C-alpha cells in the first residue's frame, strides 16, 4: 500500500516539475498542487516509516540488529564481521535456526556516525521482533549506544568494541561484552614481550590518533613500567587515522633506534605501514609488535618474528580452534565463500552470534520453551559461560567478558602460503583482568614483576 502511495506522489512530483520550465509560472491552482504534493510526500514518508518495519516482518523470526562498518576505511575491519555474520546466520538457519526459529538480521552501517547509528538503533528497537542488538565495532559507537540500550531495555552485545570505559561503572543491565577489553588485550603484549626479550630497554609506540590508540599506549606503557621499571618510552607517535603515508613516522622510529616498536594500527593503515616500513629495515632493527597484526597476515608479507595477536582468543588456527570441528568447518566455509580465511574480527562476530544463540537457549529452557522476552534474554546472558568457536566467553558480574588472550610471533609454515602465528602463549582471561569495580589503570600500576612469573610462557600453547 505504501509503495503505491509513494509511486503516486513521485509521479505527481515529477509531473509538477514541468511547471518549473513553463513560462507562465505560478498559477495559483498548480501551486496549490505543489504544496499538496509536498505535504502528501511528508505523509507518505511517515507511512513508509511505520509500515516498512511491518513489511519486513517474518512470522516467528528472531530479529537481530547487527552494527558494523560496511563503508568507509573502517570497513576493512567491519566487512569480515559482516561476512562472518552472514555465514553464521546461514548456517544457523540451515540447521533449523535458534531453537527452531529462523534468524533474520538487519545490518546498520556505523560509518554514518553516532547520530545515524542512534537513529537506526531506535528504529530497530521500536520493533519488538528485534530482540537483540549486536553492537558495535567502534568503541565510540558502543559508548553512544550504551545509555540507549539501558533506557530502551534492549540486550546489546558489544561484538568488538573494547574500551575499558564501557562497563566500568558496573551498573549495566542490558549491555554485554563477551570479549574482554583493552586492559587484558594490551597487558598480554607487555607480558609476552618481557618473556621473549627480558633485556628490552627502549620502546617506541606508533598508534592511530584516536581513543583506541591512546588507551592502548597508556595501558601498554603502564604495564611495562610496572613489570620492568627501567624501560624507557623513546617515542610516542600518533598518526592520523587513515593516513596513506608513514614515511615521516618511520624516519622518526628508525632514528630513535628503539629495541621495540609497538603498534595497534589496523586495517588499511596497518597494511600501508607494513609495506612502507619493511623496505626501510624497521622490522630488522627493532622487535615489532603489531597488536592487530593477525588481520593482515593473509594480505601483506610480514617477516618472521613479529609479535602479533588477535585481541582475544579468536585465532582460527589455534590448537583449540583446530580441535573444534565447528571452527574448522566455519573457517573452510568462510574461505570458500569470501576467498580468505576468517581474520579475528570475523571470529569475534561469529562468537557473538554463538553467545546470543546460547542466551536464547538458556532463556527458553528457563521459561519453559516460550519465546523469551528481551529482559529474559538479558537475564540469560548475565553470568553465562558460553563455549565459542575458539574457547569460552564468561560473563562477569559487571557484564564484561573473560576470554583468553593469544599472543605469538609470525612463523612460516609449509601448510599455508602466508605466515601464521607460532610460539604462542594463551593467557587465561581472568588472570589479566582487574576485579569488578577496580580502576584498571590503578590496578596495572600495582602489578609487580613477579606477576608475570606465574603466567604461561611463549611457546607453551601448542
Amino acid at each position, binding site marked *: 500500500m505504501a509503495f503505491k502511495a509513494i509511486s503516486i506522489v513521485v509521479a505527481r512530483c515529477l509531473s509538477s516539475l514541468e511547471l518549473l520550465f513553463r513560462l507562465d509560472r505560478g498559477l495559483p491552482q498548480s501551486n496549490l498542487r505543489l504544496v499538496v504534493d509536498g505535504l502528501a510526500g511528508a505523509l507518505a514518508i511517515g507511512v513508509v516509516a511505520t509500515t516498512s518495519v511491518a513489511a519486513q516482518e517474518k512470522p516467528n523470526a528472531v530479529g537481530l540488529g547487527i552494527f558494523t562498518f560496511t563503508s568507509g576505511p573502517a570497513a576493512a575491519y567491519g566487512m569480515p564481521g559482516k561476512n562472518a555474520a552472514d555465514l553464521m546466520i546461514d548456517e544457523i538457519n540451515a540447521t533449523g535456526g535458534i531453537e527452531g526459529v529462523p534468524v533474520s538480521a538487519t*545490518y546498520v552501517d556505523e560509518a*554514518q556516525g*553516532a547520530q*545515524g547509528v542512534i*537513529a537506526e538503533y*531506535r528504529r530497530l528497537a521500536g520493533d519488538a521482533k528485534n530482540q537483540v542488538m549486536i553492537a558495535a565495532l567502534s568503541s565510540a559507537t558502543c559508548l*553512544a549506544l550504551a545509555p540507549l540500550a539501558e533506557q530502551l531495555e534492549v540486550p546489546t552485545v558489544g561484538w568488538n568494541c573494547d*574500551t575499558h570505559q564501557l562497563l566500568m561503572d558496573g551498573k549495566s543491565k542490558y549491555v554485554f561484552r563477551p570479549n574482554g577489553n583493552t586492559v587484558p588485550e594490551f597487558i598480554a603484549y607487555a607480558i609476552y614481550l618481557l618473556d621473549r626479550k627480558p633485556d628490552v630497554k627502549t620502546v617506541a609506540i606508533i598508534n592511530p590518533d584516536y581513543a583506541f590508540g591512546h588507551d592502548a599506549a597508556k595501558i601498554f606503557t603502564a604495564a611495562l613500567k610496572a613489570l620492568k621499571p627501567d624501560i624507557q618510552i623513546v617515542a610516542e607517535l600518533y598518526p592520523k587515522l587513515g593516513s596513506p603515508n608513514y614515511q615521516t613516522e618511520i624516519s622518526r622510529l628508525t632514528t630513535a633506534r628503539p629495541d621495540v616498536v609497538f603498534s595497534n594500527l589496523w586495517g588499511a593503515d596497518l597494511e600501508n605501514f607494513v609495506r612502507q616500513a619493511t623496505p626501510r629495515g624497521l622490522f630488522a632493527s627493532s622487535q615489532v609488535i603489531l597488536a592487530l597484526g593477525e588481520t593482515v597476515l593473509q594480505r601483506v608479507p610480514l617477516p618472521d618474528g613479529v609479535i602479533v595477536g588477535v585481541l582475544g582468543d579468536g585465532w582460527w588456527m589455534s590448537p583449540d580452534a583446530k580441535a573444534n570441528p565447528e571452527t574448522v568447518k566455519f573457517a573452510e566455509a568462510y574461505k570458500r565463500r569470501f576467498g580468505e580465511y576468517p581474520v579475528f574480527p570475523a571470529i569475534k562476530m561469529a562468537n557473538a552470534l554463538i553467545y546470543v544463540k546460547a542466551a536464547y537457549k538458556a532463556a527458553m529452557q528457563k521459561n519453559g520453551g516460550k519465546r523469551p522476552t528481551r529482559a529474559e534474554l538479558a537475564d540469560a546472558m548475565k553470568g553465562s559461560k558460553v563455549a565459542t568457536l575458539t574457547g569460552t566467553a564468561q560473563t562477569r558480574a559487571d557484564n564484561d567478558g573473560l576470554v583468553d588472550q593469544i599472543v605469538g610471533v609470525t612463523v612460516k609454515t609449509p601448510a599455508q602460503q602466508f605466515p601464521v602465528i607460532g610460539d604462542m602463549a594463551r593467557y587465561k582471561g581472568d588472570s589479566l583482568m582487574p576485579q569488578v569495580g577496580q580502576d584498571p589503570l590503578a590496578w596495572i600500576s600495582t602489578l609487580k614483576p613477579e606477576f608475570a612469573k606465574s603466567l604461561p610462557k611463549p611457546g607453551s600453547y601448542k
Partner: protein
Amino acid sequence: MRTIVAASAVLILAVLPVAAPWLQFVLTVAIAKGFAALGVAVLLRAGLISIGHAMFFAASAYGVAFLARAGINDLGLLLILSVLVAALVGAIAGMFLVRYRAIFFAMLNLAVSMVFYALCAKLYGVTGGTDGLPVPIPAVFGIAVGEPVFKSVLFYLSLALMLLVGLAVQRYLNSPLGHALSAVHSNEIRLEYLGIPVWTVLLIAYVISAALAGLGGAIAGFAIGRVVPDFAFWTASGHLVLIAVLGGIGGVPGAFLGALFLELLHSAAVTVTDAWNLIVGMTLIIVIMFLPQGFYGLFSRKEASSL
C-alpha cells in the same frame, strides 16, 4: 495561504513521532541541523559562505557537556548558556573573520573550525578525545524526568523554538540590519558611503549565525546524548552549507526544509542499501539541478505571483 501551509507542515511534524516513535530522534536532529543551517543561510545573504559553522555547533554541544559536568542541571539554563558560549566564540572569531570576503572568508572559517576540531580530538584528558563526552539528561524546569519523557520534551521544545526563533530571524532579515546584508552582497562600497558600518553589520550577523548554530548544537547534543569531535569536522560544516543551499536561502523555512529532507532521505537510504551515500548524493544532484532555488523556491514563487 502561507500560514495554512506552514501550520499544517508543523502539525504534520508534531504528529509524525506518534506514528513512528523512532522518527522523533531523526526529526529532533533535523531541526537542530536546521537551526545551524539557518545560521549559514543568514551569512549566505551577504554572499559569505562559511565552511566552518560546525565549530559553533560543536562548541555549544561541548558547552552543554562541560556545564552539565560542572553541576548545572536544567534544560533551559543549559540551552541559554550554551547558546551564549557559541555566540561568544562567534564574536571572538567573527571580529577578524568578517574582514574577509569570498574564498578567503570560507577558507579562514574552515581553518579556524579545523583548529577547534583538532583541539577537541587531541586534548584527550579534557574532551575525552574521539570517544567524546556524555551529555546527561537534565531536569526540565526543576522536574527530574526519565529518558523517553525528556526526548519528547526536547522534540516539542525544538519544534516550538523553530517557530519562535524562525519568526525572530524573519523579522531580523526584514529589518534594515537584515537588508544591509543583501546590500553587502550587491555593493559594499555604496553601503559604506551611505554611512552604514559594514564591519558591524557583518559582525552582528556573524554572532547571530553562530548563536543559531549553537542552539542547534545544544539540541543535537541533548538528543544524541554524546558529543564527539566529529561534530566540528569540516564535512559537518559542508553538510550545513549543503542543507542551506538545498533548502534555499530565500526564506527562513528553507533551512528547516533542507534539513528535514536530508535527514529523512538519509534515514530512508540507510535502510535500503550499504551504498546509501550513492542514493543521497544522486538525489542531491537531482534536486540541485531541477530546483536551483532550493525547496523554498517552490513556495516563494507563489509569493511573487500573488503580488
